C-alpha cells in the first residue's frame, strides 16, 4: 500500500510506465501448530466434555479462575487447587450485537454477555438467549444450556438462558467486573 502511494505521488513528475507499476506478490503461507492448552486448562476442558465446570483457586487472594490458565494474574502465583463451580451464574455485563458479519451463526440482534458462574470470581464471555435481547440486564440470573455434543471447549455450552430467579444485586458481582 505504501509503495503504491509513493508511486502515485511521483506519478505527476514521471508518467507511469508498465515497468514502474508496483508488483504485488501473492504467496500463501501455512504454518501448523499443535497447541496445548496447558496443565491447568486441560483438566478444565475435560470437565467441559462431561458437562461440568471447574476453576482453580488462587492460594493468595482466594479468587477462583474460570477458565483456569494456571496462574492468578493479580498475584502472579500458580493456581493448583481445582474447584468445582455451578453451571448457573449472573450476567455482569453484556452488549447487543446488531451487525451481521461473515461466519455469524446466531441471528441478530443477539446478546454477548460476561457470565459469572456461581462459585467463580472471574467472568467469561458467552451467548444469552431464550430472552429478547433488549430485556437482558446486568444481574440477570442465567443457566448453561449444553449442546447435543460435548467437546473439550466452551462451545459445548450452546448458550445461557434466564433461570427466572430474581436478579442478583450489584453488590454480589461488583468485584468481578
Amino acid at each position, binding site marked *: 500500500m505504501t509503495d503504491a502511494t509513493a508511486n502515485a505521488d511521483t506519478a505527476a513528475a514521471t508518467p507511469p510506465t508498465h515497468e514502474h507499476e508496483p508488483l504485488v506478490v501473492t504467496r500463501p503461507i501455512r*504454518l501448523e501448530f499443535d*497447541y496445548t492448552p496447558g*496443565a491447568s486448562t486441560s483438566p478444565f476442558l475435560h470437565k467441559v466434555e462431561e458437562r461440568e465446570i471447574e476453576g482453580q483457586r488462587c492460594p493468595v487472594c482466594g479468587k477462583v479462575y474460570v477458565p483456569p*490458565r494456571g496462574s492468578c*494474574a493479580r498475584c502472579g502465583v500458580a493456581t493448583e487447587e481445582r474447584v468445582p463451580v455451578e453451571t448457573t451464574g449472573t450476567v455482569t455485563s453484556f452488549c447487543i450485537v446488531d451487525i451481521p458479519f461473515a461466519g455469524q451463526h446466531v441471528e441478530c440482534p443477539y446478546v454477548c454477555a460476561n457470565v459469572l458462574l456461581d462459585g467463580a470470581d472471574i467472568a467469561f464471555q458467552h451467548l444469552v438467549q431464550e430472552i429478547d435481547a433488549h430485556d437482558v440486564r446486568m444481574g440477570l440470573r442465567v443457566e448453561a444450556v449444553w449442546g447435543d455434543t460435548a467437546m473439550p471447549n466452551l462451545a459445548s455450552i450452546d448458550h445461557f438462558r434466564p433461570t427466572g430467579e430474581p436478579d442478583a444485586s450489584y453488590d454480589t458481582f461488583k468485584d468481578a467486573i
Partner: protein
Amino acid sequence: MSTTGSTRRDVAVVAYSQTPFVPKAADHNEVELVMPAVHDVLERTGLDSQRIGFTVSGSNDYLMGQPFSFVSALDGVGAWPPIEESHVEMDGAWALYEAWVRLQHGDIDTALVYAFGKSSSGDLGRVLSLQLEPYTTQPLWPEPDHLAAIQARLCLEGGVVTHEQMAEVAARSNTNGFHNDAVATSTAMTAAEVAGQAMAFDPLRPSDIGPVADGAAAIVLAAGDTARDLSDRPAWISGIAHRIESHAIGTRDLTTSASTRLAAQAAGVGDPASIELAELYAPYSHQEVLLAEAIGLRASADINPSGGALAAHPLMVAGLARIGEAAERITNGDADRAVAHATAGPCLQQNLVAVLEGTAR
C-alpha cells in the same frame, strides 16, 4: 562505550534461574512455562514484582503459534498493581540489554528479565524461514540448518574451520551438557564419535546442530549497592553491546563474524588473556570457532562449560541463558572475568557481547 564508564552506573546480574531445557514441554502453556524460573529468581533475591523497578521479557509468539503469549506470560509475574513492563520480540539477551539501559536512567535499582520459548508446538524450520527476505529468499523456504550448512562449507573450504575443530566443539558441548542437570537434550560423546556420524545437512552432522528445546529462564539485574545487598558476589556487567549485519545473506562474509568482533570491542573485552570463561550462543559447531576468533578468546579459555546451545537450543532463551550461566560462574568464584554472547537471525546475523566481572570497576 567503555571510555564513558565514569558516567555509567554499575549494574550486575544478582540471580539466574532456568527451567530444564527439554525437547517438548508438552503439558505447559506459556504461563506455566515461565512461572518456575521467574518465581525462583525472585525468591532467591527476596524480591517480588512490586519491588522490581522494571520488567522486560523476550519471546516470539510464532514459535508456539499462540497469539499474545507474551502478554499471557505476564500473568505469572504479578502485574498488579500495574508494573512498568516491556517486551522484545527477540532472545531474552536483548531484553536484558533493554533492562541494562533502563537501569542507567538512575531512578530504579532492580530489573527482572525473563525469556521463554516453546518451539516444539510448530515446525521451527519453517517458522524461522519466514524471517528471511520475503520476495527472493523466503519463497525457497531455506531453514536455519540449511543456511548454517552453507556457512559451514564456506568456512571449511575457506580454511577458517576444520572438521576436527567442529567435532571437538560438538563433543565437548554435548558432554558438558550431559553433566548439566538442567539440560535434557544431550549425551556425552567423543570427537571420534561425532566424526563417525552420518551427515545430517552435509557438512553438518547431527551433533554439529544444537537440539531444539523448550524452556524458560530469568535474571534479576541490580545497580550499585542494591546489587551488593542482593548478592555476596554480583556478576558486574562491565560492558554490553550489540551489532547487526545485513538481512541479505549473499552480501555477508559468512566465514567470519564482523558484528561479534565490533560488539566485543564496544563491550570492552580488552585483553583476551583476562577472559577465563566464555558462554557463546553457537547453535552450530563451526559457529563457536568463528565466535571465539571474533572475540579473540585464548585457547585456554573455558568455553561453554554449561554445554551451550549445542547441548540445548531453546529459542529466545539460549542467549539469556548464556549470560546467566556466565554470571553464575562469576558469582560462585569459578572466574573473575567472563564473556557472554548471544546471537539472532540466520548464520550469526546479529550478535550481543557482555563482559561480566567479579569486581566492580
